[in-house]
């Protein structure tokens, strides 16, 4: 046993800090050990008169990562020993919840505004809070060039920098300082809703840098408003899709230049996410036809999870429409009211025969509004027998050039509620 103990002693020496080897002096191991303990504690700035001080920094980070940002804010003021942990980057994943971020172009430069909608936030703006607004704190940032061409950054809280926006455009790129400020603000704040206004979508590296700055956030709603764009590159499209990966709502209705943003690759990239609403700009048929794209049938099971889809640029095979409706209804709970609507296009005009022949008669029935009308003016209904959940299908054909038409289909899903 004594030989084992000796080996243990040897191992004990071996496994301690290598730096320790240089500290051996005439006082022997005892002083050596004291020195080593001191070395271990110095980096964290902790003392040795409490239990917590004996834990390495990484252990403290391990503990603190299970707290909320409110708890970390309290930790900040517990004692000076704890202060450094508040801004420790390993804890950046712990964030204040529910941030509403708006990025915009101003008359002179670019800016952003973060509205914090978190009740626990310690810097609540009392005025807005009293008025019972949805947000209770706001941070504002603007970067612009002054008359001498020098870049100026402005930050304030609970004010506004947007009075001068929307008035005129300038053509200088979004500078790196903008993204640095954005990166700083997102370290401790969750970005739940994102709105981009007036900033050109194809500003070099804008979308990719924005996506990088928001990596790790689960942005739930993305809205693009009045974003000019000359060319949508695939790199920009993929970065945007990556940024929207966790979104339940993507709204492009007020960005007419982004008609071509959503295509099959974009939908593939979004994949089987929780997307519930996808709204494209209300296009003229000729523009929808210009930016048309088709998708593989294998994507339908993924697409039918989207509750509301407004995408007239997406061209589906007409023969899939009946199956699509049944898949959509099958994926919903019984008797859900107002469950959604879709708009897309098909490659051939829809006919009553085409739908009625493709429904599964065991579970579904087909009806049409007025049999004597031409198919183009008909409204078709596919109804699930067991609970009367229905899809109403209406199609319109728009000439887009001398010999081609765009066949736009509008489907709305609800519980059957019409009288015959």
């Amino acid at each position, binding site marked *: *046993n004594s030989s*084992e*103990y000796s*080996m*243990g*002693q*040897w*191992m*004990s020496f071996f*496994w*301690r800090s290598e730096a320790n080897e240089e500290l051996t002096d005439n006082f022997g191991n005892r002083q050596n050990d004291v020195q080593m303990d001191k070395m271990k504690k110095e980096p964290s700035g902790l003392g040795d008169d*409490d*239990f*917590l001080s*004996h*834990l*390495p920094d*990484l*252990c403290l980070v*391990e*503990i*603190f*990562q*299970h*707290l*909320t940002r409110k*708890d970390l804010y*309290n*930790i*900040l*003021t*517990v*004692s*000076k*020993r*704890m*202060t450094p942990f*508040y*801004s420790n980057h390993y804890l950046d*994943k*712990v964030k204040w919840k529910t941030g509403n971020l708006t990025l915009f172009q101003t008359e002179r430069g670019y800016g952003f505004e*973060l509205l914090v909608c978190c009740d626990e936030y*310690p*810097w609540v703006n009392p005025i807005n809070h009293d008025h019972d607004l949805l947000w209770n704190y706001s*941070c504002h940032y603007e970067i612009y060039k002054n008359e001498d061409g020098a870049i100026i950054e402005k*930050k*304030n*809280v609970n004010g506004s920098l947007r009075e001068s926006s929307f008035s005129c455009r300038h053509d200088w790129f979004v500078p790196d300082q903008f993204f640095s400020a954005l990166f*700083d*603000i997102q*370290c*401790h*704040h969750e970005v739940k809703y994102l709105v981009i206004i007036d900033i050109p979508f194809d500003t070099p590296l804008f979308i990719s840098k924005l996506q990088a700055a928001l990596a*790790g956030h689960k942005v739930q709603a993305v809205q693009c408003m009045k974003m000019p764009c000359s060319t949508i590159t695939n790199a920009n499209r993929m970065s945007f899709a990556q940024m929207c990966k966790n979104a339940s709502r993507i709204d492009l209705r007020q960005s007419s230049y982004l008609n071509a943003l959503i295509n099959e690759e974009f939908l593939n990239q979004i994949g089987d996410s929780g997307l519930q609403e996808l709204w494209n700009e209300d296009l003229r048929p000729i523009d929808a036809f210009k930016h048309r794209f088709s998708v593989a049938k294998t994507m339908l099971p993924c697409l039918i999870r989207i509750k509301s889809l407004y995408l007239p640029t997406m061209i589906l095979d007409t023969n899939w429409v009946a199956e699509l409706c049944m898949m959509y209804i099958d994926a919903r709970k019984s008797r859900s009211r107002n469950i959604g609507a879709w708009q897309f296009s098909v490659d051939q005009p829809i006919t009553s025969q085409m739908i009625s022949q493709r429904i599964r008669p065991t579970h579904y029935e087909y009806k049409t509004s007025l049999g004597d009308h031409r198919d183009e003016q008909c409204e078709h209904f596919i109804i699930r027998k067991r609970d009367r959940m229905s899809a109403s299908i209406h199609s319109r054909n728009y000439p887009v050039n001398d010999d081609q038409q765009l066949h736009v289909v509008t489907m709305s899903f609800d519980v059957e509620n019409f009288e015959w």
Partner: protein
Amino acid sequence: RIYPLMRVTLTTSDGASVTVSRQLTKHSGFIEKAITDMAVDDNAVPLSAVAVDVDDATLKLVIEWLTEHRDDALPYPEKTDEERRADDIPAWDQAFVQKWDTKEDQQQTLYAVITAADKLDIKGLLDMTCKTLANKINGKTVEEMREILQLECDFTEEELAEIRKENAWCEN
């Protein structure tokens, strides 16, 4: 390769020796590395000694936990950012920690086990004990935190005001 029949003698910082099965020590990254560095194989030294910088009482608690968790999957699963919940401590582990709560020095024991789990690189035990301490702090006021962490306020009122002000523009 792990040789489950192999036994390892652990020598504690206060000089005690405990011999345990390799089935337990395989969960400790530190002990496994020590054995590997000794180049032990199944034909050579079956009984190896590793010094652990942990006292005897704490090591016994560690071994008790390892015995219960000897069949846990290895490597310990990496945590994603979302997996920060602290309310998923298994019932046996909760009861294990609860036993210390009857002692006056419960906090000291918890800190000692956290430190041991860190030094011995036992990820499952470290994770569980850190969650336990986090649960004690979670939702508490500053004063309550000071009491739990056994820290005293060393700020002046001016310093506290300055900290809050410094962090007011999105904490920069």
